[in-house]
């Protein structure tokens, strides 16, 4: 069974998000603006997960300089698809 969900792309100013089952909440973030914005993006992801009521999942985000609204949209879409896949 396919358990992972992927949204987004590796285009410039986009991000690729992958969700996989996990016992805990894990965020694996790689970004080309690491030095200036790693914490900002990490906080954005964890806040969005909390807002969506996600308690355990592995999030892989490969960011290519996406802005907040892009990352949020990609992540929310991934969470919804993940829920369809696992709960639906």
């Amino acid at each position, binding site marked *: 069974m396919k358990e992972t969900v992927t949204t987004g792309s590796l285009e410039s100013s986009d991000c690729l998000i992958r969700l996989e089952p996990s016992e805990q909440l894990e965020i694996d973030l790689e970004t080309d603006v690491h030095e200036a914005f790693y914490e900002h993006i990490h906080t954005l992801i964890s806040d969005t997960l909390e807002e969506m009521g996600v308690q355990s999942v592995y999030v892989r985000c490969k960011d290519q*300089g*996406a802005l907040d609204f892009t990352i949020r949209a990609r992540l929310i879409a991934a969470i919804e698809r993940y829920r369809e896949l696992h709960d639906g």
Partner: protein
Amino acid sequence: MRTDDLEALLDVLELRDGMRVSFHHHLRNGDAVMNEVLAALRRRGLKDLHLYASALFPVHTEAAACIEEGTIRHVTTNYVNGPVAEEIARGKLRGEFTMQTHGGRARAVLQGENAIDVAFLATPAVDAEGNGSGIYGAAACGSLGYAVEDHACAKRSVLITDSLEDFPVPGQLSASHTDHVLRLPSIGDPGGIVSGTLEVTRDPLGLKIARMATEVIRHSGLLRNGVSFQSGAGGISLAITEQFNDMLAATGTQASFFSGGIAAPHVKALERNLVEKLYDVQCFDEEAIGSLQRNTGHIPISAGDYADPTNASRVIKDLDIVILGASEVDTGFNVNVTTDSYGNLIGGSGGHSDTAEDSKLAIIVAPLFRGRTPLIQERLFTKTTSGEHIDCLVSERGIAVHPANDKLAGRLKAAGLPVVDIETLMQSAHAYTGRPKPITRGDAIGIVEGRRGDVQDTLYRKAG
């Protein structure tokens, strides 16, 4: 001597460790000469050479290998990207790394401050006397502006060509300064000589910025008969040049000259009789090369005649308007075009600092952020050009005018253009990107030299 044999030529040049060897960049990313010469110098076991190249591109892999092995100890250039940039940014260069401006390099060569031992000059066409031109030959590249001072001042000047012509070649490199002529099967790949970047932007943000910059020019008070203008080969710059041409035509204005690097839109202006002269230090595309062959108003000039600050008749001392880019700008209007915000070497001044200082109106055009990285920073990673020489920054969310030029601010406001404080522009970008954490710098790796040889800034490695 005149030979087809590189090794025979190198034998007579009496090369020694530590010599300064120069190259120009008119063949850009199609250049085969530097790799071939440097590989031969490396095979000969020479050490500690000073690579004095007007610019370095991705094609220049051999220079990176020479740095790695110690064949090259020092590098001085005006613009660098590709493997040499990566090598230097990794701290691999044993000696000094200096970034000059186009005008500053010409000045340093002419004044003997940077004495060149051997100039290896790729020359698309050479005649029997040893005159050289960039207009003819299989690897025609147009103006050879950045080769002229090296050719005239080097202790030994070698013209390297793949086209020895039977007819006399009237060109920028006069036989009186030529010591040797070397013929190789090919000096470069024409596909890489004319860069592929020359497209007018189709990006809506870029077009918006271009339109606003054109309005700045319209209301600057400088649009009159005799106006002079310079713009580079970036997508936004080319769009502005086309719009500027149309504005000249619509207002019945004739410009006196366009200067610097010349591309199709500049040629179009000359051929529509919208401008009297093109002062061409470097051709960017086929159109420009063709125009040099047929248009008497299209004049190739040397780097010294273009921008040497000590040359009283340099072309850009009469320059009204220049359009310039930026990778970063700070709130004092200082500009970085040398590195990105994270310390990667991505270019260099070229003529940026020269034209910013000499022009009456220096306009920076750039989007407020690229990816998540904001243009306007509280602190630059590298300062290339002093803010005091910049008049305004045109972005998609408004025009910031340097406080020293309130006359311009007044004119633009009166014309209804969106003049905003540079701090406000920075904040409005941060609303999208977030506020960047200050970037930690690594060790110093070189210096940015101003056009008079002064130290403008220190270059640092990336941290970690």
